[in-house]
């Protein structure tokens, strides 16, 4: 539904533009009297889409438009208003009026159960949400809170739409609580036109844009948006008739991807010149072009951060308590498709699209764990958990790219071995040439851990450190200069010796300031903290000392949940014994640790 409405608006916009009339179409439909029904419907669409978004920010994703089992589209608005007329869901159910609802919908009686289910799933919650929203509002702000912001006619319509349900409420029109609704309506008020209005519906629109774009990118025209379902509100805009044919045709092609299309569609490369044969196709191409132009021109279509700002759900009070992180994660669902849209222009559309998709999927999981929060920032390979999310793009199978730009040039096999340049064979580092040690000590190959030394307290921290040092020394003697060549001198906690205690402390504190989710990181500007150290030094310290120390702590205190990828986690403190002190006074530290109950767990 939301899909449909925005598409509709968008198309109308496109076409009004082409008629030299840049005015907003909402304006169109608001101003044209005699279109009450259409107005109501559009209002319904708007509010319903807000409801869906809010719902979906709670992880409750509901696909629109609604299709019944037999592929029939269901007009939610019509259903809603019919049921409302008859007194609401409960009344209709009690009195057994569903039959007549179905009949009035003009549908076969056999879909009764489906329709009822759809109502239950979509509109029942919507109804409750609506009245709750109204209640809250009247409690909080009094009746007139935002009333002013609503144009009178809208107000009345909405009232009439809902009156059957809200008879028991104040007679005054109760203003809408959700600020996003207000925002919508404000926008209408300001008549600031399609641009803003559309930006509000970015998500929906971009889905559509992307459908259309997907068309252009798909090798096989007929595969286009196998899952695309375009719902057209029955009567909304003036210009709609001119395109309904095209939309119907598109819908048909989308629904029956393997039906032969008459006349056959041309190759994508020839679309520009394509003139005749299929009017709908020509129209579709024009719409696509117009959308592309709009997309580029639209100021809000730039970065996703802007979109986050624009997203109405960000203003919602109700989600505030969920914590910003959760909001961020779940909001991504509606946002991502848009950002993916922006990349449709590039030749690598399919590739980008796919990676982006991962983030969509991930974001759909509202119970995102700490780890995922930080990864969900990136539309990328490293999206860990993937939940299959219903998406029309599941059907756009990614194919291997073909052409000079992709394949390697493989010469024909001539049957002769051509010269493999022996110049680059690598420099032998080991065994060191002219080295007699080669044949010695073979008995030690692949030895395991000794686990003990000759000292009194075997297995103690000191003891382990002694063994490590011993092995290191042995390796050093054995390797000679190679030891340095491989950088073994810069491995392990040894590295921390080049750092003063102060520096270590500073580093530790700086790392604590990392907030991956906000892209705040020490690494963005490490020289801010340390002038003298090179980045390389710091990376080396990070892996060889910092993480190892952290890991040591984890091994001891939380052995069941060790994870060396700690740059992912926003961890708190991990004990005062961390760092140099820990190395210097292990027994003391251990005493401290044994105070910790977790430690007993481990013991």
């Amino acid at each position, binding site marked *: 539904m939301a899909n449909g409405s925005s598409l509709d608006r968008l198309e109308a916009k496109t076409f009004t533009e082409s008629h030299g009339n840049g005015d907003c179409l909402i304006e169109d439909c608001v101003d044209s009297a005699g279109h009450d029904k259409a107005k109501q419907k559009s209002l319904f669409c708007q509010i319903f889409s807000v409801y869906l978004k809010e719902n979906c920010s709670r992880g409750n994703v509901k*696909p629109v438009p*609604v*299709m*019944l089992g037999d592929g029939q589209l269901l007009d939610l608005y019509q259903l809603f208003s019919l049921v409302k007329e008859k007194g609401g869901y409960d009344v209709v159910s009690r009195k057994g009026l569903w039959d007549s609802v179905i009949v009035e919908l003009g549908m076969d009686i056999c879909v009764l*159960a489906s329709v009822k*289910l759809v109502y239950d*799933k979509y509109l029942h919650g919507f109804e409750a949400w609506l009245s709750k929203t109204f209640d809250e509002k009247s409690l909080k702000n009094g009746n007139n809170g935002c009333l002013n912001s609503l144009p009178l006619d809208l107000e009345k319509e909405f009232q009439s739409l809902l009156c059957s349900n809200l008879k028991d409420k104040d007679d005054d029109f109760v203003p809408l609580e959700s600020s996003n609704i207000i925002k919508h309506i404000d926008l209408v008020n300001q008549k600031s036109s399609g641009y803003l209005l559309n930006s509000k519906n970015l998500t929906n629109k971009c889905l559509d844009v992307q459908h259309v774009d997907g068309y252009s990118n798909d090798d096989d025209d007929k595969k286009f948006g196998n*899952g695309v379902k375009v719902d057209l509100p029955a009567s909304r805009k003036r210009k709609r008739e001119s395109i309904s044919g095209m939309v119907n045709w598109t819908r048909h092609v989308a629904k029956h991807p*393997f039906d032969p299309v008459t006349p056959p569609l041309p190759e994508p490369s020839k679309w520009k010149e394509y003139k005749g044969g299929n009017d709908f196709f020509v129209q579709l191409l024009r719409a696509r072009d117009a959308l592309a132009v709009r997309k580029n021109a639209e100021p809000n279509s730039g970065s996703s951060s802007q979109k986050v700002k624009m997203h109405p759900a960000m203003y919602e009070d109700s989600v505030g308590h969920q914590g910003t992180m959760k909001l961020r994660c779940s909001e991504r669902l509606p946002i991502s498709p848009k950002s993916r849209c922006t*990349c449709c222009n*590039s030749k*690598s559309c399919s590739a980008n699209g*796919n*990676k982006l998709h*991962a983030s969509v*999927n991930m974001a759909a999981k509202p119970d995102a764990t700490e780890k995922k929060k930080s990864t969900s920032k990136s539309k*990328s*390979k*490293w999206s860990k958990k*993937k939940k299959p999310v*219903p998406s029309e793009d*599941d059907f756009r199978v*990614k194919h*291997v*790219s*073909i052409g000079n*730009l992709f*394949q390697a040039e493989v*010469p*024909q*096999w001539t*049957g002769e071995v051509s010269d*493999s*340049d*022996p110049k*680059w064979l*690598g420099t032998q*580092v*080991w*065994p060191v040439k002219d080295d007699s040690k080669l044949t010695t000590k073979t008995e030690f*190959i*692949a030895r*395991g*851990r*000794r686990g003990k030394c000759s000292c009194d307290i075997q297995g103690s921290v000191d003891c382990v450190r002694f063994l490590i040092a011993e*092995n*290191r020394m042995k390796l050093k003697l054995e390797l000679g200069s190679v030891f340095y*060549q491989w950088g*073994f001198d810069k*491995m392990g906690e040894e590295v921390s010796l080049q750092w003063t205690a102060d520096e270590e402390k500073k580093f530790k504190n700086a790392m604590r300031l*990392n907030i991956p989710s906000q892209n705040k990181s020490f690494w*963005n500007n490490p020289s801010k903290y340390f002038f003298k150290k090179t980045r390389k030094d710091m990376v080396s310290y990070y*892996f060889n000392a910092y993480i*190892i120390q952290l*890991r*040591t702590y984890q*091994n001891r205190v939380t*052995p069941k949940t060790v994870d060396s*990828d700690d*740059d992912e986690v926003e961890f708190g403190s991990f004990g005062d014994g961390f760092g140099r002190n820990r190395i210097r006074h292990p027994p003391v530290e251990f005493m401290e640790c044994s105070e910790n109950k977790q430690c007993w767990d481990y013991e």
Partner: protein
Amino acid sequence: MRSKDRIAYFYDGDVGSVYFGPNHPMKPHRLCMTHHLVLSYDLHKKMEIYRPHKAYPVELAQFHSADYVEFLHRITPDTQHLFSTELAKYNLGEDCPVFDNLFEFCQIYAGGTLDAACRLNNQLCDIAINWAGGLHHAKKCEASGFCYINDLVLGILELLKCHPRVLYIDIDVHHGDGVEEAFYFTDRVMTVSFHKYGDMFFPGTGDAKEIGEREGKFYAINVPLKDGIDDSSFTRLFKTIISKVVETYQPGAIVLQCGADSLAGDRLGCFNLSIDGHAECVRFVKRFNLPLLVTGGGGYTKENVARCWTVETGVLLDTELPEEIPENVYIKYFGPEFSLKIPNGHIENLNSKSYLSTIKMQVLENLRCIQHAPSVQMQEVPPDFYIPDFDEDLQNPDERIDQHTQDKHIQRDDEYYEGDNDNDHQMDLP
């Protein structure tokens, strides 16, 4: 006492200090840890270790487009804001960030694979190992999935100078799309990739229906798997397919990409393999006694990567390693158990027996097509390998295409029901 195979192992101490940036799962430091663990087990005493040369841009341009290589050479973190168009064009950014010494890093790992291939070509060794290589996603004109330069393609091109046919095997959890794409049209390279496919898992390619085109038709094999595959099903499938592939294709050399992200507990992966299962694949490939180039690849839980590649180095050296990890400066990364074993994953195996056998049948079916249509290059193969073309009908190209299209339809429906919750409200109607 040397292993009877001559093993060349490539390592450059500089790779370990490369840092992709905070929160990036790719940590070249794992190469440091691997190398250190290999040495802790004294495996260096059984092999030769080389420092690779830094591949020259012109070498990289044997596969990659010159402009892309040139751009990689030029770009630095400080100047990248000036080139946003190019960055987008070459897909640099989030997955493939620009970091300090990026190009040097590419030169080292690509140089390693090139040198390895060169040594194999000159028969200076039987097995060459470059754990720093194996960046199989990189494309001709763009970076992808943490990969900038596709060293595998470069290495294979090098091997093709001396071998009519090269077999590429990929056990990374991600599809080896870069290599497959590069050799999609040729029958001189057969690519076989075992990977997770579906649920929009990166990179999104790797369906069993992708089999190559033109001369390369049937010379790309994809084994798409679902989450949680375990040792027994994976190794069984691997052995069945690979033995048939080697028997059919008769490669002159094998390139094995050992991405360790197919292990259980990987930060990005979703398989349930143990190190033993993973290494078993390496052991199996080694037994063919063909020139073998082994590279690394993915692997994002770095202590497991180090464990895995150390064990596999041991496997290639015919050396069994004791479970307890010897004391070394990185020992703490291997806690709390300090052993080579990794904990089992808890991912449910979604690969049913019937699914796996369907995949297997499909792959073997495609392989049979090779026997029916030996290419020019296959003339190298001894004649007794030819199976007479007794059923000419199968050769009818039209018919095959039809069948193929039909298969497509079937697959498509499958996906529709499996992956799509979109219409579930219709499905669960009473």
